[in-house]
């Protein structure tokens, strides 16, 4: 059986008619007891499983997924990876994720197609430029690469923008993170799943959590559609459904669930070799390796668990994009979709022990979960293995809402959520 991916294994399997590849991950029957349970088979859950095994040697782990691996938000995002955040706590967490993304393909022996093509956040007014300058200063102080772009710099990087004098959203400049970019989202999920499975993690799909096993005030496992599974430590990384599970465990979270939409155009020849974000139009766009333009926008206006989005926001996104790039006026849209994101009041994640001892949280990433997958996995794995916070996750504990120590990234992160 061929397990390792390399040029040599590709050649050998090519000669052998592709018959010797082993399955990317095992699908074992669930055991009644594990050292740790992870709820959620998206990017964060799979990364948690991998880092639990790799960093902490905890391999007797069950990863439980209601549907299929990567079928939720991991397959519903716009694949952007960046770390240009305002506050030091955020720079630490997204910087950790970004640094792990850079070497993830080699680490997992799976090509996640990370592409550091640069990310440009536009400023559309003089006031916007002053805010951009302040952001660049803060990001540089945080140790993240970032530059202030003039309008000439923007013209060099995005020549297709609408630079006409009567443009509705004129460009004054922007901020530029050269090391930001994109990664192939499905590959991130599949790569982590394959690597975790090979280290011994049991990935169990079509396994829905129906209840928690609570004894003497502690979480001792879960009741699932495939039977009871016990463990002394359970972690959950279920994004938009965190409140649903929290209700089963008997507590509330500072989370509102919203749909976040995106769409892709038909594939066209290479025309945009970076990621461009406009906070004013609420639109961001990049071009996939297949040639599709990947277009994202603001949160839906209505709290929702319906994974499809609503029309007014999509209309706003398309209108904004056409104001910025009139050249896209004849493009046909191929697909539109939405994922359910967990929005918290300060737009920063929640990582830490829940009000139910033994149950640990990784949620609240809002619109930015994909870029944070390696960090979310590293930090939840640390919590599950040691029972205590990693230095980077401590500021993101749930207790910050009662203590008033919020990390308010709503404006600092350069997006609206």
């Amino acid at each position, binding site marked *: 059986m061929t397990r390792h991916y390399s040029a040599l294994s590709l050649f050998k399997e090519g000669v052998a008619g592709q018959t010797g590849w082993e399955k990317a991950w095992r699908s074992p029957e669930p055991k009644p007891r594990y050292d740790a349970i992870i709820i959620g088979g998206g990017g964060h859950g799979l990364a948690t499983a991998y880092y639990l095994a790799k960093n902490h040697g905890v391999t007797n782990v069950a990863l439980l997924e209601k549907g299929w691996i990567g079928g939720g938000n991991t397959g519903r995002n716009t694949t952007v990876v960046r770390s240009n955040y305002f506050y030091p706590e955020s720079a630490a967490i997204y910087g950790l994720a970004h640094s792990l993304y850079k070497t993830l393909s080699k680490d997992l022996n799976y090509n996640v197609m990370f592409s550091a093509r640069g990310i440009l956040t536009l400023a559309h007014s003089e006031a916007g430029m002053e805010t951009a300058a302040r952001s660049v200063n803060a990001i540089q102080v945080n140790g993240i690469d970032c530059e202030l772009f003039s309008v000439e710099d923007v013209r060099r990087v995005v020549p297709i923008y609408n630079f006409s004098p009567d443009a509705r959203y004129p460009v004054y400049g922007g901020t530029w993170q050269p090391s930001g970019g994109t990664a192939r989202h499905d590959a991130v999920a599949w790569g982590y799943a394959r690597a975790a499975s090979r280290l011994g993690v049991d990935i169990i799909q079509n396994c829905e959590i129906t209840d928690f096993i609570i004894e003497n005030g502690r979480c001792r496992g879960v009741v699932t559609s495939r039977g009871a599974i016990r463990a002394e430590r359970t972690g959950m990384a279920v994004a938009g459904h965190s409140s*649903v599970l929290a209700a089963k465990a008997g507590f*509330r*979270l500072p989370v509102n*669930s919203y749909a976040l939409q995106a769409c892709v155009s038909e594939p066209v020849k290479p025309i945009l070799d970076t990621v461009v974000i406009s906070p004013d139009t609420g639109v961001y766009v990049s071009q996939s390796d297949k040639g599709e333009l990947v277009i994202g926008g603001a949160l839906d206006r209505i709290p*929702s668990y*319906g994974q499809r989005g609503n*029309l007014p926001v999509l209309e706003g996104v398309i209108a904004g994009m056409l104001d910025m790039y009139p050249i896209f006026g004849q493009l046909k849209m191929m697909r539109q979709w939405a994922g359910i994101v967990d929005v918290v009041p300060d737009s920063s994640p929640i990582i830490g022990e829940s009000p139910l001892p033994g149950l640990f949280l990784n949620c609240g990433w809002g619109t930015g979960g994909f870029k944070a997958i390696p960090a979310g996995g590293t930090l939840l794995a640390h919590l599950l293995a040691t029972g205590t916070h990693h230095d980077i996750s401590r500021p993101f504990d749930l207790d910050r*809402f009662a203590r008033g120590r919020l990390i308010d990234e709503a404006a600092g992160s350069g997006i609206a959520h």
Partner: protein
Amino acid sequence: MQLFPCPFCGPREESEFHYGGEAGNLRPDGGDVTAERWAGYLHMRHNSKGPTREIWMHLTCGEFFAMTRDSVNHKVSGSSVLGETEHGA
């Protein structure tokens, strides 16, 4: 475009409305409210999946009202003028 029923103006396009939070989230009263209770009022939510009772504002007429809506399929089963319990203090 979905239509929402304003109890004062009748059915209007969803873009005329602003979400105002879960119904029944009452503001704590008195001087000796704990930090946990304040955090509960300010931040913690049920965020229910399925039928929910919510406060909405019709931006055009400026009135707040309560609406019963399913958060999965977005079906609205009714709206009503705010009563004492949803108003809070």
